[in-house]
Structure formats: C-alpha cells, structure tokens
C-alpha cells in the first residue's frame, strides 16, 4: 500500500489559512490503513483545527467528508457537491489522490494534507517499512525477494557495501542492511550462486527516470 503521514498541524494551518470554508476530504483506502487520512483522521484533524483557529480568534468553517478512494473518478464524484460548497479542499489522500481530485475540479483549490512517503508494508502495528520503489522492471527473483533498489541506501546491485555491520545499514543503524537480508534469504533458499553472479547495470528506462509513466490495458479500455 501507499504509506503517508499527516502533515504537522502548524503546516496545515498555514496551508488552509487563506480560506473561510474548507472541506477536509479523507480517503478510505491506503491512507486509512496507515492512519493518515481515513475517516477517523479527518474527524480528529477537524476538531484540532477548529480548536487551534478558535484560539487564534480566526473564523473558519470546516466540513468533513471521506470517500472510498480519491484516485478513482467513481468515488471522487461523490464529493463533488461538498467540494463545490467550500472555498478549498484539504485532501488527506496520497499525492496521486490529491492530483486526481484536482483535475476534476478546475476552479477549486485542492490542497495536500498528507506527506506521501512510500510504497510499503505494515511490518507490525504502528510500523511501516518501505519495500518497493516501482522501478517498472521487477527483479526480485534474483535478489531473494528483497529489493536492493529500494532497501539498500546505495541501490547496490552487487552488494553489500563495506559498511554493513551486524546486519544493519551504515547509513542508519536502525535499518536492516538489505544485502544482509538478501544473503540470509538466498542462503536459506540454497541459491547462493546468485551472489557470485555479476549483475549488470539496471535498465532505468521503465522507471520514473524515463519520464512519467502510463499503463494502458487494451483489454480493459472501453
């Protein structure tokens, strides 16, 4: 899923300050699961903002609304009236959701309320880790299903570097060294030969480096 974190309230206050009537628009999919922008977070943020603005003597009307997904027209439509009623919309979706909503409402300011951070997994309650950077050409088969492009701080294809110590990354001692994990995994799988194989430079053209990407599924197009 996409993992994000709500922006600090001080920053959100600044972003919405120019407007009198705002809609806080939640998204019920990824950002809900990571507690950044689901219905509950919309409610908590709304109360917090009301309180903060009241303290400052600043008048603002806040409306709440949450849709299933902000990255699909079908759901965005449900918010159309609420968006139209307000001067601006603070979206608590990921960056893709914010943009998807914005392109449907040409004249309404759509503002970001979440810092979208990564594609990852829920490691355990309250802990999310980054696992994939969407390189467009998955090679997890040779790396024992541990992605070095995402999880090694230096994107090493032929790691580990000289700084890997006791399974931790030299860049952050709280983070596992991806190459340590790859070696562990390949050892368990009896595929240590993969480690002896020279891995050629990555083809980055299917990644963001080749420019923004589009995926066309001819079979689905109507």
């Amino acid at each position: 899923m996409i993992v994000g974190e709500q922006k600090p309230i001080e920053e959100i206050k600044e972003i919405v300050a120019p407007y009198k009537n705002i809609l806080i628009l939640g998204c019920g999919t990824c950002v809900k699961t990571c507690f950044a922008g689901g219905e509950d977070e919309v409610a908590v943020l709304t109360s917090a903002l009301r309180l903060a603005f009241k303290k400052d003597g600043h008048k603002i009307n806040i409306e709440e609304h949450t849709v299933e997904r902000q990255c699909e027209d079908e759901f965005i439509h449900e918010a159309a009236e609420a968006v139209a009623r307000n001067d601006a919309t603070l979206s608590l979706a990921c960056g893709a959701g914010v943009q998807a909503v914005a392109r449907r409402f040409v004249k309404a300011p759509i503002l970001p309320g979440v810092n979208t951070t990564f594609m990852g997994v829920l490691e355990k309650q309250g802990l999310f880790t980054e696992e994939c950077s969407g390189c467009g050409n998955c090679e997890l088969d040779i790396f024992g299903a541990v992605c070095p492009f995402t999880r090694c701080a230096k994107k090493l294809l032929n790691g580990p570097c000289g700084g890997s110590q006791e399974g931790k990354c030299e860049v952050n001692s709280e983070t596992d060294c991806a190459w340590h994990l790859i070696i562990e995994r390949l050892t368990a799988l009896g595929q240590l030969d993969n480690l002896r194989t020279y891995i050629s430079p990555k083809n980055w053209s299917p990644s963001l480096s080749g420019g923004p990407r589009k995926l066309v599924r001819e079979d689905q197009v109507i």
Partner: protein
Amino acid sequence: MSTQSPGRLEKILSSGGFAVTAECGPPRGASADVVRKKGELLKGLVDAVNVTDNQTAIVRMSSISASTHLLQMGLEPVMQMVTRDRNRIALQSDILGAYSLGIRNILCLTGDHQSFGSQPDAMNVFDIDSMNLIRMVLTMRSEGRDMSGFELNVPPRMFIGAAANPFADPFEYRVIRLAKKIDAGADFIQTQCVYNMDRFKEWMRLAREEGLTEKVHILAGITPLKSAGMARYMDRRVAGMDVPEAIIKRMAGVAKDQAIEEGLKICLETIAELREVDGVHGIHIMAIEWEEIVGRIVEEAGLLPRP
C-alpha cells in the same frame, strides 16, 4: 591485466614489485597550491597517489583536476571515482577526459552516502554500483567501446582498482565479493585499514584458496594512529572499521606525547607483518590530512628508495 601504455603503478605490480601508494584529499576550495604542497610531501616516496572523489560526501576540488595537478608535478595519480554523484553518462565522459589528461589509474567506488556529508539535502545518483563501474572501465579498455557499444576512437586504457573491506559483515561473503570484483575487471585492490591482523590474514587465506591472489594485486590499507581517542573513534564510529581492543589499549598505555611514536611503531610492525603475507603486493597508506608522516613510514619501513 595489461594496459597498453602502463603507468608506474602497473609496471611495479606486474613486475612483481611491492608497491606503495598514499592518499591526497583535494582541498575544500579552488587552490591548486594546496594540492601541490601535498604532492611535494609525497614526491619520490610513493609509487602512486590516490586522489579522493568528494570523500565523505563533502564538496572538494574534483578528483580529475587534483589528479591533473599531481600529474604535472611528475606524481602518478590514482583517480578515485564514486558512483554517488554521477550517472553512467557522466562517468564515462569523465573517464575519457581523465585519460586524455594523462591519468592512467582509476579506483572504482560507490562512495559514502551523502547523509554523512555536509549537504545531506542532496539527491544521490547511484545509477550503477562500483562493480558495474569496474566492468564499464574494463569494457572501455578492452573492447574499446562505451556502454552503448559505440566504438571509441581512443579507448581509455586505465589500470583498474577497487576497494575491499575484509572487516565488514558478513565475513564469509567478503571473499565472494572480492572474487566478483576481480571477475568484473579489477587489476588491483586497496583494502580498508588493517588493524585486526588475524581477520585480515584469514581473509587472505580464503582469497588464496580461491586462487584470487593470482589474479589481482592486493594492497593492504595502513593508517597511522595519532591517539587512543582516534583508535576508539574509528572502531566505534567509522562504518566498516575494526580496531581491536589490544591496539586501543596499547595506544592508551603510553604518555600523550608518545602516542604518535607508538602509532608509528604499530604501523611499522603491521607493514613488516603484511610483507610476509602471501599475496600482499603492496601497501596503501591513508594518512588523512597528515601527509608529512608518509615519508617517515616509508623510510623506516625500509621501503625506500622507490623504483
């Protein structure tokens, strides 16, 4: 492992000599004089001088230009090149440029992560890794082609170096990685500083067992210690460094004004021991911002005059 117009380092190593290299960190400024001063301190004492490439991710004069200044003084540079800051296009272009300027040795590295440096806000590149860089230089040299397969009018015939850290984890994998670097095209290896002699010897033994020492020249890293504090700091804070407690204790056991002499003694004992290790073809002295000491080390180790 033969290039067409070999530099001094290659000649010494391929004729079975014991090589001595040192290091020169370019200045944080545009002064060629700083480079020349460091060069003067090393001239005639070592066979080649590594010129670091924005070491520890701190902006310094480029490795190519500092290497060129040394070259003009008659010193032989080993141009270090990291993949942190340049993509494959820029790396190939700089290798062509470096060769055209007379640079004959390259040390291929991935580089320290920018979060350790003075500009952690920077975006890193890491388009390719050090292993890929080694192979790239080899392809340019032996096939005379760039990475797109385009034929180069004059191929850069670089003598290719790589780094190895026998002290990092996981240990068993360290020799596999060395083998990979040799397969990728490394002619010589410069290692992380050796303080833990047992572990270094074990690594060398495994390398010999795999026949690697027949295929590559290994230069063991040496860094003179200045104080017990420095030894402790390196052990605890520098990633991939291993300074055994016995060495730290030895440094702590002498009076403060004797620390440098003790460090030097350790250094000389280490060199003497390294010279006896089968497969060690030289030493690489990394005396960071302490180039004046290199002369003493080389002389007292009995490694003068240089060929």
